[in-house]
């Protein structure tokens, strides 16, 4: 691990403890990941132990029972989930049905675009997805050049927790395999962006053509261990 350097504003390598201490109760928090890949498991562990509560979490899904953000929901520290689906998490579905957590569903790609739009400094997007369904009942529906359309508002958050395959000390990130998913979008869409990574490189360690998230979006890089307990293959998903 590279030395932390508080004097150098260009060095974003931050200790795990310090990074977690920046997250407060009542905040809205975007969490990368689609299933296990790209879910910032170590940062979530930190959040679990930090004592924060009343969180709004924005994520693709709620992971599976006992894993990732499901643990935050199960602990009762999540007030609201803004999410695409809960298909693999019967425990959170039950909590939703019991009104122990508020859920706001969006079509998956629209959730992605709302977040991307927030990160891109746009106010929102215009789409025809869902115009003929019950989701239109709770959306702003307009006529757009003769076509029924939904105006979807951008989403931004106080904090984004990102899992990157590698980072340099300036905060440039790259992702691998199916662990991209929501990470590059969320990394642009929050006021405080904390990225965990297994590998920290010196500036120049990532080919400038292969940077997936330019460093300007990232506030803190946290070097974490590739702990098999958190990041290993889930046996029940192997054929």
């Amino acid at each position, binding site marked *: 691990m590279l030395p932390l350097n508080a004097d150098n504003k260009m060095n974003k390598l931050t200790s795990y403890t310090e990074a977690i201490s920046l997250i407060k109760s009542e905040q809205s928090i975007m969490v990368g990941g*689609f*299933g*296990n*890949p*790209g879910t910032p498991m170590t940062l979530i562990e930190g959040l679990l132990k930090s004592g924060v509560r009343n969180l709004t979490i924005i994520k*693709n*899904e709620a992971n*599976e029972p006992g894993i990732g953000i499901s643990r935050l929901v199960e602990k009762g520290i999540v007030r609201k989930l803004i*999410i*695409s*689906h*809960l*298909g*693999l998490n019967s425990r959170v*579905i039950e909590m*939703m049905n019991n009104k122990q957590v508020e*859920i706001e*569903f*969006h*079509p*998956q*790609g*629209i*959730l*992605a*675009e709302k977040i*991307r739009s927030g990160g891109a400094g746009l106010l929102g997007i215009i*789409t*025809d*997805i*869902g115009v*003929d*369904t*019950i*989701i239109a009942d709770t959306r702003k529906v307009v006529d757009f050049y003769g076509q029924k359309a939904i105006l979807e508002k951008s989403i931004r958050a106080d904090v984004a927790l990102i899992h990157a*395959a590698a980072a340099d000390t300036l905060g440039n990130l790259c*992702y*691998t*395999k*199916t*662990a*991209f*998913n*929501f*990470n*590059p*979008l969320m990394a642009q869409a929050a006021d405080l962006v904390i990225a965990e990574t297994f590998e920290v490189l010196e500036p120049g360690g990532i080919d400038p053509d292969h940077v997936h998230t330019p460093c300007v979006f990232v506030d803190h890089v946290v070097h974490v261990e590739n702990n098999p307990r958190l*990041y*290993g*293959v*889930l046996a029940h*998903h*192997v*054929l």
Partner: protein
Amino acid sequence: MSYKQRIAERAARTVSTGMTINLGIGLPTLIPCYLDQEVQLLIHSENGVLGAGKAATQENAHPMQIDAGGGYITVNKGASFFDSATSFAIVRGGRLDIAFLGALEVSEKGDLANWIIPGKFAPGIGGGMELAQKARKLIVVTSHCTKKGQSKLIPECTLPVTAKKCVDMIITELAVFEIKNDELFLLEIARESSLDEITEKTAARFRIRGKEIPEF
């Protein structure tokens, strides 16, 4: 052969070289097992991969490489990984030649309901609404009837729809239907079934083209 395998085997024959397809969770993921070896295609999974290969085994499963259902996958040469915005740009941009989805109900005009049973079942929307609305061809692969024996093909959906007039083809263990210009046509009958059985178990009105109905 189970009824699911029967459906998957027939569905596999809708796919030809050069296509890009998306496989919904569940039954659709069986389709690749029945593809002709000669068929070269691209499998898209909405979690951010194009060029997915066979399911991974204990030996080659990589913790960061899954499909949208959570199963570990391999990838073929020429695969690519990308974020969820790009993944759905592929879907909404009309780049999927076929999407295969399951169904709770399909109306005779091609409305699909598969995401919510109000008060009972609401796991969320996922990618289904976009797949249903934007794939160039939407093929529903499903058991012909519900577990209670009710026809899934009905005149009008009673459940909230995923998308209207989106279904192009329906493959069940009994029959293959297509929907053209808001009309349902019976295309093929399973060799184990008969027109009588299909008529009895299908609540939707359907038409037949020509005299002979091919078997599958």
